[in-house]
């Protein structure tokens, strides 16, 4: 993959993140689905371009709502994890994709909860706060109470995202797959 392709792939990845998130919230889905572009960029271009796609997504979104900037770290971590998995094993085998999705589904809410606990006290201002409040009242510390409701939705969110990307990559011609083709084919 030459640099020019990477330079245009990152904006498209950011666009996919933004449009994907908009569609998910428009359909009132209980998941975010706003990291598809990051995962796609990372799988094809590698970890650093993936991290750049993730980081820039939140930075550009923060031009409209600056509080989105905080969660750039989550998106960067998603890009790095998927990128390294893709470099090492490719991104076309379902078992590799499943393991990558599971790792991302655990790491992303851990980082997200640390940020949300510090900035927002672990709450979202939505209905899920009742669950968080219930866990806090039953004696759980703030981090645990904020983490447990997030892990379930992240599991569905990230697994759906990685498999969607895998199907897109499988449909791509060989010369456009980049690192996702696997170490021996890249």
């Amino acid at each position, binding site marked *: 993959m030459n640099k020019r392709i990477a330079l245009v792939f990152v*904006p*498209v990845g950011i*666009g996919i993140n933004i449009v994907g998130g908009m569609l998910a919230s428009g359909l009132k889905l209980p998941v975010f689905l706003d990291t598809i572009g990051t995962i796609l960029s990372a799988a094809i271009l590698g970890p650093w371009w993936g991290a750049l796609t993730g980081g820039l997504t939140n930075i550009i979104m923060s031009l409209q*709502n600056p509080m989105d900037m905080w969660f750039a770290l989550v998106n960067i971590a998603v890009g790095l994890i998927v990128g390294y998995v893709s470099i090492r094993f490719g991104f076309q085998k379902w078992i590799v994709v499943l393991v990558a999705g599971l790792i991302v589904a655990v790491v992303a809410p851990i980082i997200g909860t640390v940020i949300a606990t510090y*900035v*927002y006290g672990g709450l979202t201002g939505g209905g899920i706060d009742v669950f968080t409040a219930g866990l806090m009242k039953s004696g759980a510390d703030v981090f645990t109470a904020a983490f447990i409701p997030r892990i379930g939705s992240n599991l569905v969110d990230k697994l759906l995202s990685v498999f969607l990307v895998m199907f897109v990559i499988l449909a791509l011609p060989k010369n456009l797959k980049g690192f996702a083709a696997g170490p021996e084919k890249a």
Partner: protein
Amino acid sequence: MSTDTAGGLPAFEPGAFPHPVGLLALPVGPRMFLTCCGVLAVALSASISVLVVQLAALLMVAIALRILTPLLKTWRTVGWVSASIVVIYAWAYPGSTDYVWVFGVQGFLSGLLIVVRLLGFVTVLYLMLLSTGPLAIVRWVGDVNDDLGIMVSLTLSVVPVMKQQMETTIQAQQARGLEMGGNLVRKLRAYLAVMIPVVVKSLVRAYGMAALLHVRGYGSGRRDKPVFRVTAAVVTCYALGVLWVAASTVARLALR
């Protein structure tokens, strides 16, 4: 300025807009530095009183920049979550020992600290955004790094096209009988039916854009970088940022 030309829109007259003065004359780079220092200083503050002092100082700056009203309006974006934090922390915070009816005093104070800190973050970040504007920030990114600038510019041009693409795809799929509502499985199916064509078309567009960059000779010659002038105002800005973080750190250590 006359308003009777261009269909009621104000006509452009050279020199009609005053040259930026005072704080508004500062370049974007030092402002970004000051914003980063502000975020760090607020994050380092662990006492309500220190945070309130910083918040008051930021509001004074907003008054000086004449953006107090729009700045206060941005507080509404975190209004609901702030109310939730205070109520839920007062009711459910595990560390509460003293109670007034069902609400714990320690929980209330912890919630209040988080809310004041949250307002501090919102104020610092929106102060930057309202006083500078997104376009100036994008231009500054291009000045810092060419590749980053082209990526941000391409993103800003690609996103509206992709939104349009998404709307067209939704209409096309609905015409083929796709239902956008219903249970969770049906919604997920609708999501995939819209998202997969959007992603594939975006990739095709990406390769078209890469070819255009190649044809236009992007990367073959570097453009001249703008010269950053070090003025007294810029130096003061950097010094203020460092002082702000240092004061916040000292206050945190002293109040421990």
